[in-house]
C-alpha cells in the first residue's frame, strides 16, 4: 500500500483553548479508526451471528411431532467459515473476490446440533449441516478478518474497502437499514374519527410477528381496546379482568393512584361492569367474539389462548410455566393501565400527542433485525419439513439418520433468494440493493443509508421535514430530491445504532436502585416519579433525580452497559435499552469541566487509548434522543461550562459522511449542499484499489484523480483523499464567448489533451455454458456458419480459437466477443429433421453503439459447474462537448465549447483557465462556498499546502485574503486578464482561482442517439423506443398539436403515417369491416361477404387496423364508412 505524500495542511489559527479543533478531530479519527465507517452494518451482522441466531434456535428449541415421545431438541447452532462447494463435492475456503468473479455466494455452512428423543428418551445426538448462511464481508465470520491488512492484496482485496455487504451470486448486495416506528410502547395521538377523542397505539412484537393494540378514548368517556387479533371494541376493564385484575379497585390502581385520573375511569368501569364482573365472565365475553357459537368452557379456553399469544406479545414469558404466565398477564394488564392513564392525561390536558417524527420514537432495523426476521420464517419451514420427514420415517418403523432427512436447501435458497431480490418476508421490497460502486462515496453512502417505511406516494410532509432530534444522528444535508425527499436518510458521521441489551437485567438493576414495582407502590402509596423501561411502566421511584444520577454514574464508570440510556422528562423517568436507537457520542461535562483532558488526547493520538476506552472511562457517552432531552450541549468550549452537561465532539456533527467533503459548507445556501451530496455520488474517480480485478457490470475510473487542494477534516478521515473523484482545476468566472450560458462551461482543449478529466469506462459481458436435460449443452466456440442466426464471418473475426476475443483487441458494436452456440430448441415440430440438428447462435456481441478494447478475460467455473466466461471491455472517454461536470457546491454544467489554449484568456503569468464558468451561475444560487474555495485553492496552489475548509472550522476569509495579498494577488481573487483572441486587456478584472471539479457519469457517449430508419415493434409496426433499441424520436402529442395548429397536414401525415406504421388495408364497403387477403386466390376476402364483397383499398396506420381487430375480438363491430378522398 502506498501512502499519500504528506502534504502540509493549513488550518485556521486558533487561540489554543482546549480542546482545539485538532484535539476534537483526533477523537473523530479514533472513532473511525477503531470502529470503521460502516461499523453499524458489521456490528449488526456479528450481533446476528453471535446473539440473535442462537436465540432463535433457543426459541424453536423443541420440535414436537404428532407421535408421542418422538421429538427433536436443538442444542446449538454453529457457523463455519465461508467456503465454496465445488460440483465435484470438494470444498475450499473462499475469499470475497473469488465469490464475486465466479458468480458464487459468499456463504458459510451452518450446523445444528440436535438430539432425537424416542419415547422421551434421548436416542441420538447429531450435528447436521443445515444450509448456507451468507456472510457479510469483513464481519467476524468473514475469512478476510483472519488476514492481516497487508495480506489483503494477495486475495485481491482493497484493505480500505469498508465491507458491510454480502456477495450473492457474485453481486455485492447491501441490506439497507429500515427506519420504523418504535414498537412495544404506546404512541399517543388525537382521534382520527369524530367519536374518538384520543387514541393510543402499541405495536407489540412477538417472536416473528406483530400485534397491534389500539386504545381509544371515546366521546362518551369510555375507553375501548381493539386488538389486531380481536377486531372488536371492548371496554378496557374487560381485558383487565380477563388478565386477572378482577376488582374495580385493582383496575383503578393499575391505572393510577391520582384521584383526578381515577375519576375519569367511571364511564369505562360502568361499561365494564355491564359486560363482566369476574375473570371468567370477561374471558367468556372475549371468547364470544372469536369462538362464536361455542360452549362457555371452550370460549374461555380460546380467549386465554388468544390473549396469551396476541395481547401485547412483547410481554410474553420466555418459559411456559404457570407462574411466569400469570406474572405476564399482570404485566400486560399494567401496560394496558399505563396506556389508559396516558389517554386520560391527554383528556386532562396534561399530555400532548406524541411526536411521531421525534427520533426517540423511531427505531432503525439493521441487518441483525432483518436477518432474524427472515431466518425465523425460514427456520420454521425447515423444521416443519424435518418434522414431516421424521414422522413419515417413524410411521414406516424406521428411525433415520437426521442428516439424511434434512433439507439443507430450504435455508440456503430462501435466504439467498431474499438477499438476491430484496423481497423480504412480510412483503417488504428493496431491503437489499446492489452496492453502488460509481465511486468511493457512493459506496459509503449506500452502506450508511436509512430508509423510512412510509410510502413515497403520500405527502407525509412532517415526516420528511428535518427534525431537531436528527441533529448528530441523521445527516441534515444528504437526502434525495423528489419523491423520496426526507424519507431516505443517511447516518451522520458519528452516529451509531444500538444492538440492544437484555431488558430483564436492566429491570432488575432498576429495582436494585430502589424502583418500587407499580402495584406495590400504589398500594403502599409510594410517591415519586414513574419509571418506564423501554416505554413500559415498571415502577415508581421516590427520588427520581437520584436514580438518574446513580444510573448515569454507573454507566460512566462502566458498571452497566453503555447502551443503557436514562432520561428524566417531566415527572417520569425513561430508561431505554432496546436495539435500533440511533445515538450520538458527546463529550461529558461534569461539574462545569470537561472530563476529557489533554492527557487523554495525547494518549489517544499516540494510539495508547482507543475510542472505546474513552467511552468506558466515561469521558465520552452516547445519548439517545430521549436522554438528549436532558442534556445542554455546548458546541464549542466556553470559559464557563457550568451550565452545560455535554459538549459536541465536533461542530459539524450534523453532517454525514458525504456532506463532510463539501468545503466551506456553512457558506452555501442549504439546497446547494443537498444537490452536491447527490452529485458527489455520480462523480467518477477511483472507486476502489482493486478495480483491475473487479468485473462489475459497469464502472468508471478517472485517469488522474487528485485529492482536493481545499480539503476538510472529514474528507481526509473518511479516506476520500485516497480514493478521490475529481481534479483541481483553474476556474475563471466570465462570459467569454457566450458558449457558457445556461450553466454550460467552457473547457480548455490543451488541458483535455494533457489528460484532464479523462476516464475509462468498463463494461463486463458474461455468459455461461449451460447444460440442458438430455445431455445437450451450450458450447463456447466460434459458431459454425450453419448455425441458426449466424451473423456473418466478419462479426466473429476477433474471436480466438476458444471462441473468446483476446485482451487488447479493439471491438465495436455488433461484433461478437464471446462466441457461443446453444442446442436447437425442440418445440419446432413443424420443421424438418435438418433444422433440429442445427445449433443456434447464442453469441454475446458488443452492445450497439458501444466500442472498446477487450480489457480482461476470465474463464472460470460457476458454482453449478458450468464454464463461465466474463469479458470486460474498456473504453477511453476524453471530455467532449456535452459531458457533465460539477464543483463541490451543487454547481453542475455541461461543456458548451472546448477552446484552444491560445484563445483562452490569460493572466500576466500566462495562466489560462481549465474551465470557464458563467458568473450568472452564482448570484441566485448563493454558493459563496465556491468563491471561498476558489480563493483558498488559489492560495493553496501558490503556497504548496492544502487548505482546510472544514465546515465551521475552516481557514477564514480574512486569513485567505492576507495569504493572497502576500503572494502579490488581489485579496478578492480577481486578476487582470487579456483576451487570447484579440490580445486586449479585458475590461473587467476576472475572478480566477482553483476549484475542485468532478466529472459526472452522464456522458454524451452514453446518450447520443439519432435514427433515420430502423427496427419496428412487431405488434404495432411503429418504430421502437429507446436508444438501446435504436428507437425513433417520438413526435408526441404536443408536437402534433403544433403541426395541426400550423396547418401542416402533409408534414403531419408524413410523420404519423408514412414514416411510422403505414399499412394498406382492404375494407369491404358492404359491411365496413377490414378484409383479409386470401393467400390461395391472392384476392381480398370479407369475413362476412367472402369474395363477393366490394373491396376498397385504404391506407391507414397499422395501429388503427390493430385497434379494429382488438375491438372485433371484444365483440364490438367497428363499421367503417368509406367515401372518396377529397382533393
Amino acid at each position, binding site marked *: 500500500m502506498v501512502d499519500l505524500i504528506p502534504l502540509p495542511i493549513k488550518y485556521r489559527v486558533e487561540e489554543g483553548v482546549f480542546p482545539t479543533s485538532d484535539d476534537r478531530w483526533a477523537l473523530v479519527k479514533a472513532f473511525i479508526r477503531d470502529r470503521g465507517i460502516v461499523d453499524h452494518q458489521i456490528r449488526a451482522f456479528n450481533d446476528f451471528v453471535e446473539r440473535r441466531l442462537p436465540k432463535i434456535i433457543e426459541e424453536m428449541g423443541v420440535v414436537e411431532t404428532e407421535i408421542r415421545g418422538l421429538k427433536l431438541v436443538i442444542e446449538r447452532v454453529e457457523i463455519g467459515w465461508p467456503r465454496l462447494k465445488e460440483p465435484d463435492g470438494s470444498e475450499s475456503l473462499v475469499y470475497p473476490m473469488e465469490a464475486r468473479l465466479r458468480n458464487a455466494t459468499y456463504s458459510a455452512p451452518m450446523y445444528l446440533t440436535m438430539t432425537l428423543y424416542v419415547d422421551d428418551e434421548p436416542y441420538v445426538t447429531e450435528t447436521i449441516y443445515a444450509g448456507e448462511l451468507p456472510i457479510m464481508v469483513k464481519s467476524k465470520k468473514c475469512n478476510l478478518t483472519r488476514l492481516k491488512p497487508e495480506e489483503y492484496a494477495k486475495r485481491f482485496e482493497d484493505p480500505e474497502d469498508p465491507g458491510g455487504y454480502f456477495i450473492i451470486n457474485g453481486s455485492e448486495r447491501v441490506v439497507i437499514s429500515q427506519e420504523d416506528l418504535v414498537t412495544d410502547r404506546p404512541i399517543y395521538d388525537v382521534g382520527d374519527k369524530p367519536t374518538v377523542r384520543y387514541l393510543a397505539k402499541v405495536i407489540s412484537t412477538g417472536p416473528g410477528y406483530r400485534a397491534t393494540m389500539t386504545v381509544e378514548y371515546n366521546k362518551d368517556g369510555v375507553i375501548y381496546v381493539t386488538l389486531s387479533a380481536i377486531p372488536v371494541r371492548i371496554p378496557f376493564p374487560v381485558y383487565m379482568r380477563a388478565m386477572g385484575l378482577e376488582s374495580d379497585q385493582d383496575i383503578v390502581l393499575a391505572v393510577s393512584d391520582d384521584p383526578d385520573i381515577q375519576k375519569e375511569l367511571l364511564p369505562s368501569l360502568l361499561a365494564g361492569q355491564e359486560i363482566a364482573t369476574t375473570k371468567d365472565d370477561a374471558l367468556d365475553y372475549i371468547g364470544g367474539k372469536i369462538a362464536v357459537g361455542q360452549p362457555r368452557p371452550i370460549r374461555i379456553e380460546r380467549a386465554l389462548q388468544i390473549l396469551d399469544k396476541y395481547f401485547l406479545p412483547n410481554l410474553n414469558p420466555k418459559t411456559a410455566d404457570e407462574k411466569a404466565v400469570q406474572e405476564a398477564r399482570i404485566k400486560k394488564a399494567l401496560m394496558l393501565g399505563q396506556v389508559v392513564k396516558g389517554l386520560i392525561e391527554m383528556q386532562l390536558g396534561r399530555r400532548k400527542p406524541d411526536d411521531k417524527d421525534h427520533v426517540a420514537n423511531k427505531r432503525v432495523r439493521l441487518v441483525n433485525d432483518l436477518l432474524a426476521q427472515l431466518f425465523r420464517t425460514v427456520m420454521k419451514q425447515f423444521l416443519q419439513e424435518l418434522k414431516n420427514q421424521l414422522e413419515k420415517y417413524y410411521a414406516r418403523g424406521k428411525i433415520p439418520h437426521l442428516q439424511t432427512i434434512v433439507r439443507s436447501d430450504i435455508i440456503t435458497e430462501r435466504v439467498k433468494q431474499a438477499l438476491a431480490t430484496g423481497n423480504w418476508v412480510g412483503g417488504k421490497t428493496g431491503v437489499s440493493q446492489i452496492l453502488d460502486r460509481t465511486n468511493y462515496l457512493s459506496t459509503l453512502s449506500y452502506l450508511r443509508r436509512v430508509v423510512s417505511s412510509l410510502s413515497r406516494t403520500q405527502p407525509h410532509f412532517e415526516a420528511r421535514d428535518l427534525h431537531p432530534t436528527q441533529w448528530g444522528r441523521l445527516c441534515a444535508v444528504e437526502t434525495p430530491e423528489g419523491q423520496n425527499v426526507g424519507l431516505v436518510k443517511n447516518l451522520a458521521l458519528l452516529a451509531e445504532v444500538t444492538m440492544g441489551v437484555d431488558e430483564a437485567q436492566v429491570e432488575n438493576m432498576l429495582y436494585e436502585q430502589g424502583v418500587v414495582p407499580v402495584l406495590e407502590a400504589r398500594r403502599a402509596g409510594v410517591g415519586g416519579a414513574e419509571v418506564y423501561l423501554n416505554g413500559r411502566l415498571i415502577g415508581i421511584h421516590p427520588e427520581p433525580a437520584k436514580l438518574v444520577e446513580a444510573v448515569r454514574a454507573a454507566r460512566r464508570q462502566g458498571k452497566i452497559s453503555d447502551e443503557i440510556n436514562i432520561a428524566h422528562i417531566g415527572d417520569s423517568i425513561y430508561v431505554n435499552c432496546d436495539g435500533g436507537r440511533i445515538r450520538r457520542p458527546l463529550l461529558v461535562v461534569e461539574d462545569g469541566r470537561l472530563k476529557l483532558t489533554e492527557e487523554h488526547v495525547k494518549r489517544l493520538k499516540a494510539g495508547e487509548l482507543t475510542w472505546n476506552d474513552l467511552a468506558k472511562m466515561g469521558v465520552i457517552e452516547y445519548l439517545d434522543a430521549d436522554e438528549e432531552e436532558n442534556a445542554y450541549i455546548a458546541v464549542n468550549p466556553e470559559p464557563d461550562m457550568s451550565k452545560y452537561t455535554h459538549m459536541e465532539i465536533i461542530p459539524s456533527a450534523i453532517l454525514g459522511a458525504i456532506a463532510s467533503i463539501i468545503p466551506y459548507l456553512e457558506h452555501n445556501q442549504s439546497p446547494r449542499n443537498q444537490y452536491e451530496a447527490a452529485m458527489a455520488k455520480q462523480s467518477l474517480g477511483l472507486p476502489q484499489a482493486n478495480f*483491475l480485478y473487479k468485473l462489475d457490470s459497469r464502472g468508471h475510473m478517472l*485517469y488522474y484523480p487528485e485529492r482536493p487542494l481545499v480539503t476538510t477534516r472529514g474528507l481526509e478521515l473518511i479516506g476520500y483523499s485516497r480514493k478521490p473523484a475529481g481534479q483541481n482545476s483553474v476556474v475563471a468566472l466570465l462570459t467569454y464567448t457566450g458558449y457558457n450560458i445556461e450553466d454550460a462551461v467552457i473547457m480548455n*482543449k*490543451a*488541458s483535455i*489533451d*494533457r*489528460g484532464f478529466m*479523462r476516464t*475509462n469506462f468498463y463494461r463486463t459481458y458474461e455468459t455461461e455454458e449451460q447444460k440442458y436435460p438430455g445431455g445437450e449443452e451450450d458450447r463456447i466456440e466460434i459458431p459454425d456458419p450453419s448455425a441458426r442466426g449466424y451473423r456473418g464471418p466478419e462479426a466473429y473475426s476477433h474471436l480466438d480459437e476458444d471462441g473468446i476475443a483476446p485482451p*487488447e483487441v479493439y471491438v465495436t458494436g455488433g461484433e461478437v466477443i464471446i462466441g457461443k452456440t446453444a442446442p436447437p430448441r425442440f418445440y419446432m415440430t413443424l420443421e424438418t429433421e435438418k433444422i433440429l440438428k442445427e445449433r443456434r447462435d447464442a453469441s454475446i456481441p458488443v452492445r450497439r453503439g458501444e466500442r472498446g*478494447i477487450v*480489457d480482461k478475460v476470465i474463464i472460470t467455473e460457476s458454482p453449478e459447474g458450468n464454464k463461465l466466461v466474463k469479458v470486460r471491455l*474498456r473504453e*477511453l472517454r476524453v471530455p467532449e462537448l456535452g459531458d457533465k461536470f460539477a464543483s463541490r457546491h451543487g454547481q453542475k454544467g455541461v461543456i458548451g465549447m472546448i477552446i*484552444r*489554449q*491560445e484563445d483562452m484568456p*490569460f*493572466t*500576466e*503569468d*500566462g495562466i489560462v483557465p481549465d474551465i470557464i464558468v458563467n458568473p450568472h451561475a452564482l448570484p441566485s444560487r448563493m454558493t459563496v462556498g465556491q468563491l471561498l474555495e476558489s480563493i483558498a485553492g488559489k492560495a493553496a496552489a501558490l503556497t504548496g499546502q492544502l487548505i482546510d475548509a472544514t465546515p465551521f472550522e475552516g481557514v477564514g476569509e480574512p486569513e485567505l485574503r492576507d495569504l493572497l*495579498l*502576500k503572494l*502579490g*494577488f*488581489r*485579496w*478578492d481573487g480577481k*486578476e*487582470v486578464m*487579456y483576451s*487570447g483572441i*484579440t*490580445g*486586449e*486587456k479585458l475590461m473587467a*478584472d476576472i475572478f480566477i482561482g482553483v476549484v475542485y471539479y468532478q466529472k459526472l457519469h452522464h456522458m454524451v457517449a452514453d446518450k447520443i442517439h439519432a435514427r433515420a430508419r430502423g427496427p419496428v415493434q412487431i405488434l404495432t409496426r411503429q418504430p421502437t423506443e429507446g436508444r438501446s433499441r435504436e428507437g425513433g424520436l417520438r413526435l408526441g402529442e404536443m408536437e402534433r398539436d403544433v403541426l395541426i395548429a400550423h396547418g401542416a397536414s402533409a408534414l403531419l401525415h408524413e410523420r404519423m403515417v408514412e414514416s411510422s406504421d403505414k399499412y394498406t388495408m382492404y375494407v369491404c364497403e358492404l359491411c365496413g369491416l377490414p378484409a383479409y387477403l386470401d393467400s390461395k386466390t391472392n384476392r381480398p376476402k370479407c369475413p362476412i361477404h367472402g369474395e363477393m364483397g366490394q373491396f376498397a383499398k385504404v391506407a391507414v396506420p397499422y395501429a388503427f387496423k390493430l385497434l379494429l381487430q382488438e375491438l372485433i375480438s371484444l365483440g364490438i363491430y367497428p363499421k367503417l364508412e368509406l367515401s372518396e378522398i377529397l382533393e
Partner: protein
Amino acid sequence: MPSAKVIQRDRLYLKAVVEGVPPSIVNSIRRVVISEVPVFAIDNVVIIQNTSVMYDEMLAHRLGLVPLTTPLGQFPKIEECESGLVDPSECSVRLTLQVAADDDMVVYARDLVSDHPDVKPVYPDMPLVKLAKGESIALEAYARLGRAKEHAKWQAGLSAYYYYPKLIVKRDDSECLKICKSVCGEAFGESLKEFDPEKCTFNKLKTCEASCNGSIEVDWERHKYVVWFESFGNMSVDEMVAEAFRILKLKFSAFLEALERATAAQPAGGQEAASG
C-alpha cells in the same frame, strides 16, 4: 517605430519591453509560440509488450507528453513536413523503451532510448510508469515534428504579456506604500513617487491599487508591453522565439499574397461590391 528591449534573459526565459505595436501584434507572437512552434513529441507507439498495470493507451498518452529536445536546424522545416515535400521519416525520430523489472521499480523518461542523439527527453527524471517485479515493457515510439494546434503535447513553450503599468499618485500615503511594498517589493523606493515600473507587474500594481483607497491610480502606457517567453526545454528560448517569428512572418506574407491574389483575380471586385 516599434522597439524592444530585453530586460531578462536566460536559456529558457526571455522578458522584454515592447513598444509601438498594437496588442494584436504582441498577441499574435504569443499565439504562435503557444500553438505553432514545432517540436518533437511521441505520436505513434508500437507496443510490443506491456505487462504493467498501465493500459497501453494511457502509457502512450504519457509518452506523448514527454518533452523531447528539438534541434530544429537538423530537420526539415515544419511546413515541408506538413505539406509532404519531404519524406515523413525525415521529420520523425524513433525511440525505444525496453524495461523489465527485477524488482518493483519506476520507469523514467531517461529509459527512452532515442535513435537520434539530439532528440531525447528534456527532463530525464519524469516518471512514466511503475513496474512491479516481473513486469516488463517493450515498445517503439515514433516522435514526430508537430504543432500544438493539433495536440498540446507539441507545445514548445509559453508566452504572455502585460500592459506597461503607469502609476498615478494622487496623494502620499504611507499605509499604501507599506501594502505596495509588500506586494511589489523593490519596485518602490522611499515614497510612492519613487516607482520603477519594470520591477512590478500590472496586476500586482492593480493589487496595491485595490487596497489603497484611492491614493494611487493605475493606468497603462498605450502600445507598450512587457512580454515574456518561456521554453518548455525542447529548445532554447532564442530558438523558439526565432522560429515563432519565422512562422509569423510566413503567415504575414501568405496573408499578403492571398490578399494580392484576391485583388488581382477580381480587379473590379471593389466596385462590384460597392454597386451590389
